[in-house]
C-alpha cells in the first residue's frame, strides 16, 4: 500500500508538472501581449517595453522557464498582472466558490440519480423506465450554457424568484447547481441502473431472497452496495472534472469561481494567474482521483491496490 501510494503520488506529480510546462509554453506562444492588456489602448511602445521588463517577459523563454521553476519550488507562482496580488492567493480565494458549486452539484446529482437509477433498475425495460431514460438523455443533450440561460429566463426573469448572478445569498446557488446537475444526471443514473440490473440478477440476491430478506434490504443494502465501486468512480471522476472549472456555467451565472477567473485571466493574458489556476485545479483533480482509488478497498475488500489494474 505505501509503495503503491508513493508510485501514484510520483506519477501525479509528474502529470501536474508536465501539464504546467505545457501551459507555460502555450500561453507564451499564443498571440496577445500581457503588457498591452495591462496598460490599455493608449500605452506607447516604450510603456509596453517597460511593463514587459517589469513582468520579466523581456527575457528569453528558457530563462523565464528557469525562473518559473525556481519560484515554483518555493511555492511562489508570481504576481497576477491584473489583480496585482500573488496569483496563488487569487486562485485560492476563488476556489471555495467552485468547490461549493461542485459539491452542491454532485450532491444534488447523487441524491436524484441514485434513487432514480435504482428505480430504473427495478422497472427495467418498462415504458416508464424508457421515459425516464429518454428524459435524462435529453438533460444531458442540452448545451449547458443554453440550459443555464433558459433557467435564468424562467426563474429570474419571468418569475423573479432567484437571483440571476453571483453568490450573495444561498438562493444564488440554486440555478447553477441545477444546470450542472442536469448534465450529470443521465450518466450517474444509467450507471446505477446498469450495475443494479446486474446485481439484482445475481445468484446471491436470489439466495438472499429465498432466505426471506425483504425486497428493500435486497435492493438498497445488497444490490446497491455491490455497485459501490463503479458508482464512486463515476461520481469521483465527475467531481474532479467539475473542480477543473465549470467554465461555461460560471460565465452564464457570473459565479465568482475559478472558471470565470480563467476566462478573465485569458482575456488579460495574465500568465501567472493562468499557471496558478492550472496548478491548483490539476492538483485538486488528481487528488480527488487518488482518493477515489484509495476508497476502493474500503468499499470492496476484494480490491487490492497496486495489484492488477
Amino acid at each position, binding site marked *: 500500500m505505501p509503495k503503491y501510494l508513493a508510485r501514484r503520488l510520483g506519477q501525479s506529480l509528474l502529470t501536474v508538472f508536465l501539464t504546467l510546462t505545457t501551459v507555460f509554453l502555450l500561453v507564451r506562444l499564443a498571440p496577445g501581449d500581457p503588457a498591452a492588456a495591462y*496598460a490599455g489602448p493608449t500605452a506607447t511602445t516604450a510603456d509596453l517595453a517597460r511593463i514587459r521588463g517589469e513582468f520579466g517577459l523581456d527575457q528569453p523563454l528558457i530563462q523565464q522557464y528557469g525562473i518559473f521553476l525556481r519560484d515554483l519550488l518555493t511555492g511562489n507562482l508570481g504576481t497576477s498582472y491584473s489583480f496585482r496580488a500573488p496569483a496563488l492567493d487569487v486562485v485560492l480565494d476563488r476556489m471555495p466558490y467552485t468547490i*461549493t458549486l461542485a459539491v452542491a452539484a454532485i450532491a444534488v446529482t447523487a441524491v436524484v440519480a441514485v434513487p432514480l437509477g435504482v428505480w430504473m433498475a427495478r422497472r427495467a425495460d418498462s415504458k416508464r423506465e424508457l421515459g425516464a431514460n429518454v428524459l435524462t438523455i435529453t438533460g444531458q443533450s442540452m448545451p449547458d450554457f443554453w440550459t443555464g440561460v433558459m433557467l435564468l429566463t424562467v426563474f429570474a426573469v419571468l418569475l423573479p424568484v432567484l437571483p440571476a448572478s453571483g453568490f450573495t445569498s444561498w438562493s444564488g446557488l440554486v440555478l447553477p447547481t441545477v444546470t450542472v446537475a442536469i448534465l450529470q444526471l443521465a450518466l450517474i443514473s444509467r450507471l446505477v441502473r446498469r450495475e443494479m440490473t446486474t446485481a439484482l440478477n445475481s445468484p446471491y440476491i436470489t439466495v438472499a431472497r429465498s432466505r426471506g430478506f425483504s425486497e428493500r434490504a435486497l435492493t438498497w443494502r445488497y444490490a446497491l452496495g455491490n455497485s459501490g465501486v463503479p458508482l464512486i468512480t463515476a461520481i469521483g471522476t465527475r467531481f474532479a472534472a467539475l473542480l477543473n472549472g465549470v467554465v461555461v456555467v460560471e460565465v452564464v451565472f457570473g459565479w465568482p469561481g475559478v472558471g470565470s477567473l480563467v476566462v478573465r485571466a485569458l482575456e488579460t493574458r495574465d500568465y501567472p494567474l493562468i499557471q496558478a489556476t492550472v496548478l491548483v485545479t490539476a492538483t485538486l483533480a488528481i487528488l480527488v482521483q487518488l482518493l477515489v482509488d484509495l476508497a476502493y478497498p474500503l468499499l470492496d475488500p476484494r480490491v487490492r491496490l497496486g495489484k492488477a489494474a
Partner: protein
Amino acid sequence: MTPTPQSASSGASPGAPAGAPPREPLSRRTLLRWGAAGGAGVALAPLAACAGPTGAPGPGTLTLGLNRSLVSLDNKLNQFDAAVTVQRAVRQALTRIGPGMKPRLVLAERFEMAEPTAWAVRLREDIRYSDGSPVTVEDVATALRMYGQVNGSFLLGLFPELPTVEKTGARTFLLHTRKPVPVLDRLMANIHITPAAANKPEELQSGLGTGPYQVLKANGGAGEYTLGRNPRYWGPRPRIDTVRVRFVPEESSRVVALRSGELDVVDTLTPDSADQLTGLPGVEVEVTSGVRMCQLFYNFRKPKGHPLADPRVRQALTHAIDGDALINDVLNGSAEEAGGVVPLALEGAVRTGSYTYDPGKARALLTSLGAGDLKVKVIWESGEFAADTSVMEAVLDMLKAVGVRASLQQFEPGGDILTWRQGRAGDWDVIGNGYGSPTGQALTTLQGMYGGTAAKERTRDAFMGYVVPGVERQLSAAATEVDDAERTRKLATVQQAIWDTWPSLWAFAPKTLLARRDRVRGMSLLTINSYDLSAVRLEG
C-alpha cells in the same frame, strides 16, 4: 450517498467470493464513516466561508452592479468610467469635473492659474482622512510623484507633463509646469490624494481617503466592496448607510438583477439593455450625451498608391453607411452620429460636418476614383463598444451593397489586436475603436488621436498611423494657448482641418446610459459617466 453500501460484499452476500481479509485493524465501516464525516466537513467549510450575509439589498443599502471588476479602489492603473464613481466616494482629488465639464473644487478651496506655468492652490482647512489624520501638501506632492512612477498608467497619457509641487505655506502650494497646461485644473481631478506615508507607485490595496465613504470590506479578487459612511467626512453627511459594489460581468445578468431589485444601479448599459429596461415598473433609465468616441477609423498606414490613402476615396466610402439605420435600428437610438471629430459633449468640441448616406453616390464616386473593386477588411476587438458585433455586421452589409468586398476579423480580448493596430501583424483597412475622454476636454482627445508625429510613428505610436504634420502643429499651438477664447478658436480650426482628412468611415458617440431602481434618488449622471455617490439617497 447510500446508507450502508459496503456490507453487501463482506459477509452477508452469499454469492460474493469469500475474499474478505481475516482481520482488519480498522473496520471498513468505521473508516467509511470517518471519510463521510470528513467529506461533509470539507464540503461545508467553503460553503460556510463564502455564504453572503444578505440577498436582496436592505433598506439602507445601495447595491451597484459594475460590468468590469474593480481590482482596487485606486485609479493609478484601473481606469474605466464607472469605477470613478466608487473611487471618488473613498478617495478625492483637488478638483473634480462637474456638470457642463466645468471644474469644481473638492479638496482645494482655491485652484487658480497664477502665471502660464504655475497654479496657486490652497487646501481646505477642515479636511481629514477617515483615520483622522490631516491632509497635507506633502500628500499631494507624493501622490503626483507616485502617479508619475507607475508603469503603463492610462492617466499619465492625459497629462502633457506632470506638475511639480512647491510648498508655500501649511496649506498652500504652487503647481509648476515647464510649458503652459491650461487645463491643469481639470486634469488634477484624476490625481487622488492619500496619506504620503502609505502611497506607493502601484495600485493601493487599502482604501484610506477623505471621501464620504470608507471601505468596510474589500475583496479585490472578486471585485466586491462594501462601503460605509465616513464619520469624519468634511462635506454634508452622506444619506446612505452602506454601499455595496458588485461585479456582474454578464450584461444580461445585470439587466435581470436590476429588474428583480437585486441591484439598485447598473451603469454603462448597452443600448439593448437600456431598451429592455425602459418602461419597466420600478426602473428608471438615465441618459446623457457621451464623451466616448466610437469610430470606424481608416488605416492611415496605407502605401501612397492605395485607394484608401486618398481622402476622396475615404469620403466616398462614408456615403455607403446608413448612419440613421445604425443609430436607430442597431443602437436603438442611444447614440449620436458624430458631427465632428470628437464627441460634441466635450468642452471645446465643434460641429464640423456630417455623414450623408447615398449609396448611389458612393458607387459612382468609387468608380470614378478608380476604386470600383475596393476590398476592405474591418477589424475590432469584442466589446470595444456597445453592440459592436451588430454594428460591424450591419456595416459589412452596407459596404457590400455599394459593391465593396468587405470582410470582418474580430479579436477576442487579450488577443493581439495591438500588433495589428500598430501595423506589425496583418493588413487591415478599417478598425473599430472606442476612445474615452475622462477629462471632458476636446483637446486631450484630439491630441491622443490626431497628434501623431513622424517620431511617434517610428515606434508605431501614432494613432492608427495618423500623421498629418499641419494638424499636429495646430494642436500643439492650441494646447499651450493660455487665453481661453483664443484656444477655443484654434481648436475649432484644427477640428475642421481634421474632418477634411476624412479619418473615419463612420463615427458615433454612444450616450451614457444608466438604469436605477426608482427608490434611488438624487442621482445626477454626468456626461463623463460618473455621479456623486454622496448625494444619492434611498427612498422606500
